[in-house]
């Protein structure tokens, strides 16, 4: 066991990119933590299982995985993953994760949350994390309802949905997550379904490997407070699960992505948008590197000394 303290030579963080997979095999067993507190039948179980499997495939070093969440049923996620995890306040998981991502380029940041956390109380942060293209992956488990607080209207609840805060049925127009994300400037936007495990895993893997802000809306049914919400996209309930055909849809074309997002429920599933744009992480690091290069190895203490001497 090493007790050494890593002294960063010039920067407090050695600005390395996430490490390559290592030989020490990461297994689902190693990643399993507390038994989830979700209700039996909750869609989130499948999301968790898919996440384990993708991590098993990607084989990142165990200690470099960080799970972040805000508040909500799905935001309990980090407790169920045996990795570095931080459970934050309602709606602010993304800025917290931004702080981790920007200051620690050596770790992999995963953010989990629900529709309330992401689109309502944290809506502003989603727009800004997306436009800044922060390097992280955000999975929004969308159940169209507030579950933890026992059935209030959510920003994605369809009009007419009866809840404790809308006894006559929801009045407000729900947001369209795909359209909102497209407008925000996110560089990887996809939609999947908790009951489609194979598809969900494929989408998660692509999202994680994307170099930038990747966001996945994952429909995940709340069996307690909005049972049947996604029946129209579940083949075994008589619905249709239609995938985006990427030979027909250009994922770099935001206008056609916007049109896809306009399809009536249940819409299509898959990658709506996927482009390469420099991340804030990379651009900030370039500034740091350029600045450091100009100083030609001057010790940090001496830089501050000179700054103070200029006040003489």
């Amino acid at each position: 066991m090493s007790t050494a303290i890593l002294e960063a030579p010039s920067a407090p963080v050695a600005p390395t990119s996430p490490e390559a997979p290592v030989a020490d095999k990461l297994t689902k067993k190693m990643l399993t933590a507390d038994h989830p507190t979700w209700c039996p039948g909750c869609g989130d179980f499948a999301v968790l299982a898919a996440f384990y499997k993708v991590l098993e495939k990607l084989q990142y070093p165990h200690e470099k995985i960080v799970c972040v969440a805000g508040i909500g049923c799905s935001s309990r996620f980090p407790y169920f993953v045996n990795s570095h995890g931080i459970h934050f306040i309602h709606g602010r998981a993304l800025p917290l994760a931004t702080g981790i991502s920007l200051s620690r380029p050596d770790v992999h940041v995963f953010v989990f949350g629900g529709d309330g956390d992401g689109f309502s109380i944290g809506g502003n942060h989603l727009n800004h994390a997306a436009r800044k293209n922060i390097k992280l992956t955000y999975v929004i488990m969308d159940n169209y309802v507030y579950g933890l607080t026992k059935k209030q209207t959510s920003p994605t609840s369809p009009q007419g949905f009866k809840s404790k805060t809308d006894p006559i049925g929801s009045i407000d127009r729900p947001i369209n997550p795909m359209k909102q994300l497209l407008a925000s400037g996110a560089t990887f936007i996809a939609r999947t379904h908790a009951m489609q495990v194979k598809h969900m895993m494929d989408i998660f893997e692509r999202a994680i490997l994307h170099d930038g802000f990747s966001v996945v809306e994952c429909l995940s049914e709340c069996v307690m407070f909005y049972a049947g919400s996604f029946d129209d996209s579940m083949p075994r309930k008589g619905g249709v699960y239609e995938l985006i055909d990427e030979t027909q849809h250009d994922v770099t074309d935001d206008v056609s992505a916007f049109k896809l997002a306009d399809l009536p429920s249940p819409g299509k599933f898959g990658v709506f948008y996927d482009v390469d744009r420099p991340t804030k992480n990379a651009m900030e690091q370039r500034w740091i590197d350029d600045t450091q290069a100009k100083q030609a190895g001057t010790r940090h203490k001496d830089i501050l000394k000179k700054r103070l001497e200029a006040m003489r």
Partner: protein
Amino acid sequence: MSTVTAPAPSITTLRNAVIRLAGNSQDGIQSIGGFLARLAGRTAKDVMTYMTIPSTISGGPSIFQLHLGSGEVLHTGDESDVLVVFYQHSYDDHLHALKDGGICYYDSGEVTELKTERGIHHIGIPFTQATIEAVGGSSRDRGKNMFVLGLLCAIFRLDKDKLVGIVSRQFGKKDESILRNALLAFDAGYAYPVGDIGSFTFEEGEHKDEHRLSTDGNTLMTMGLIAAGVRYGSAYPITPWSPIMEILRAELPKYGGMYVQAEDELSAVSMTIGAAYSGHLAVTGSAGPGLSLKMEALSYASMAEIPLIVINVQRGGPSTGLPTSVEQSDLLQAIYGSHGDCPRIVLAPKDVEDCFYIALEAGKLAREYSCPVIILSDQALSSRIEAFTEPDLDKHWVEPGLDLAERPADFKPYALESVTRHAPPGAKMASGRYPHVTGLEHDEWGHPSGNPKMHQKMTDKRRNKLVELSNKLPLPEIYGDTEGDVLLIGWGSTYGPIKESVNRLRSEGHKVGSTHLRHLHPMPAHLDTMFAKYKHIVVVELNDRGIYGYGQLAMLLRASLADPKIQSVCKTDGLTFRIREIVTGVEKIMTTK
């Protein structure tokens, strides 16, 4: 001006002088005030400045006041010895601030209606016209501040070479013609015949220390943060905090760090907590309105035991209030502003120099106690310039490190028997079990726990570390009499004026001392032993005396010590304390029984 000797008929020697410049914010009076303050630092003198700035975009009436002295300067001056006015409105608004028999230099092209009162000497000089004549071209009245600087240099027989050097260094960064014009205007002012009022000279400065710096509180606070090892953080712009985030944004890349502008105050504090959770010493900051917005996340940081520095450059009033005025009305918000019992440390620097050391201490305490540390600065301290001894970086520099060492098998993120030391992402766990950091009440491993006994134990753990700090803090020093009639208590930027008030009260024969609390939460234990030696304890602070008659610190002291001797001298006019306001307030308390 306290006159000492008169060596020649036309030259009066001074120990100190207060100069007030009054104009509009776009006239550049802040720049020339800054030049004079820097000159003071370079000529072994002491200085304290005071400025007002309009909170409007297009500018408006503005003043810059300097108190220059050969000895110690503790306040910005109740009234000025010399008033320089650029406009009629400046004259009308500020003549009252000139002492009886003082000298008023006015722009004779602008000020036409003069009042003959209180033996004030008026000297009209066409600042604007003379500047235009000196500089020529189409520069119009730009540069009249430099004309006035030259004028003051001549009147006070200041070190012209050093002053020109300071000006040249500042303007030299810009293009050559700007420096040339500035110096032309300066020379015109320097050579302008001011008539038979005579000139002044300062006694030799007493501050002989080798390296003396002069700057403002915000700038020095930022330098302190860098020295303390801060490399990351995030903030949202707000007056008067913004200069700190602007300097951090520009400076941190030199140190391998990064300072990020967030979309709002909630995001700013959250990003900063993210960087702190990642193992860095991180800082966020704001003014009162922004601190209010950060409160939920600060409660989280107490609960999750995240080390963090938060700076609040206080301004005036509730709500948007007075963005460019001073007040100390965020003390209770800083200590108690969040929901739940969430212990955190609150500190306040006493002067510009102390901004450096308080930042260092905040970094040390945040790490040691793994909790948020709030620094309460204020608008006056943030913008005023003082001269002070250069900090010894070899002694104070903290090299930041990221502790990614593997944590031993018995590691627990929230061990009950010790202060929390988080394992940042990237640290391996010998046990194979990874820690969860959380704002839910939790057990020692970071699992959510609603167990009543566990909540009590964790509440004790979070509180007791601050009880321990309180017991470790030394009693603050006493200035003046260590027993007697009155002990004045202050916190924050009122340090100098309170000390000067003690001088005045003692010179009137009262037995008076003062003490200054830099640690406001927790406070040092056993303050009551100090208080027992005085008849009155008077807490001097820039906040409202409230419906029960006590300012915010006074209320806390009364609540914790239950001592009815504790009284308040408070005000909230958005201005710093005048010495006579404190002295009068204290005298009133001494005489009422």
